[in-house]
């Protein structure tokens, strides 16, 4: 099972990367869409976890993901409104959404400890992917200073989530 979960998480990262490579210099409207999509997908993942898991540590982590990503997405929406930028759908957002849908379907077949492990493994992989994209593509490509600053704070937040997910994985093993 562990090998299978690793493959799913790894496949998610590999599939999203080519989309980012093709659009190595996204514009601010696309960056805003990618960042918002990543947050919204993790909120959905958190809600799925809360509907399935009974593990208190996993619940606390999932609640935090829902809370944090919802708050940051609200902040992102307020910023794009202020900047009069309309988020623009793009290949990277689509790849992220498609992979997340596939992972949700896989996770929906699991329960108990198997679900908990898979959810946390996916959270680690997902945050690694998004953090890599923020660091190497989204932040350097952002031209508006306020958007860049929000993305930089977002990167610190998501790095915190990745570390928290890693701690939670160790604690629930």
């Amino acid at each position, binding site marked *: 099972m562990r090998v299978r979960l690793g493959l799913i998480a790894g496949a998610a990262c590999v599939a999203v990367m080519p989309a980012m490579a093709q659009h190595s210099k996204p514009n601010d409207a696309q960056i805003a869409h990618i960042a918002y999509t990543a947050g919204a997908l993790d909120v959905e993942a958190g809600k799925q976890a809360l509907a399935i898991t009974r593990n208190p540590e996993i619940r606390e982590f999932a609640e935090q993901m829902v809370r944090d990503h919802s708050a940051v997405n609200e902040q992102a929406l307020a910023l794009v409104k202020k900047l009069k930028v309309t988020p623009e759908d793009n290949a990277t957002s689509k790849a992220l959404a498609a992979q997340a849908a596939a992972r949700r379907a896989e996770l929906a077949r699991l329960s108990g400890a198997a679900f908990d492990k898979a959810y946390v493994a996916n959270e680690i992989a997902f945050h690694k992917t998004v953090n890599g994209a923020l660091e190497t593509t989204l932040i350097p490509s952002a031209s508006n200073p306020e958007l860049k600053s929000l993305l930089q*704070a977002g990167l*610190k*937040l998501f790095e*915190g989530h990745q*570390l*928290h997910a890693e701690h939670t994985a160790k604690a629930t093993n």
Partner: protein
Amino acid sequence: MTRKAVWRALFGVIAWAMMPGATASAVPAAAKQITIGAMSIVPLQLTVKAGETVEWINKDVVDHTTTEKNAKIWNVSIAPGKSATVVMKKAGSFEYYCRYHPNMVARIVVTAPGRK
């Protein structure tokens, strides 16, 4: 007590409460402040004397905690836009972090009273 006497006493209390500085004795000594904003803790190290109060102000849009790392001497949640205080009772050097975002780490050095 007559009704007049009651009113006089009540007026006296109100007048006393409205005097400048009248409530100062109820306010504790100024807390040493730490700001959490854009996922950063400022300052990263703070020195206080034992018995002093430290206040964390959360300027982020997400919840944080201030959690002493080794023995969880303190572990307090701070909602967005809110603050939390802890009285530093014991001298020592204490590393603390945010339980929700473990990459946020800082330190408080508590010196014995009377020492600089």
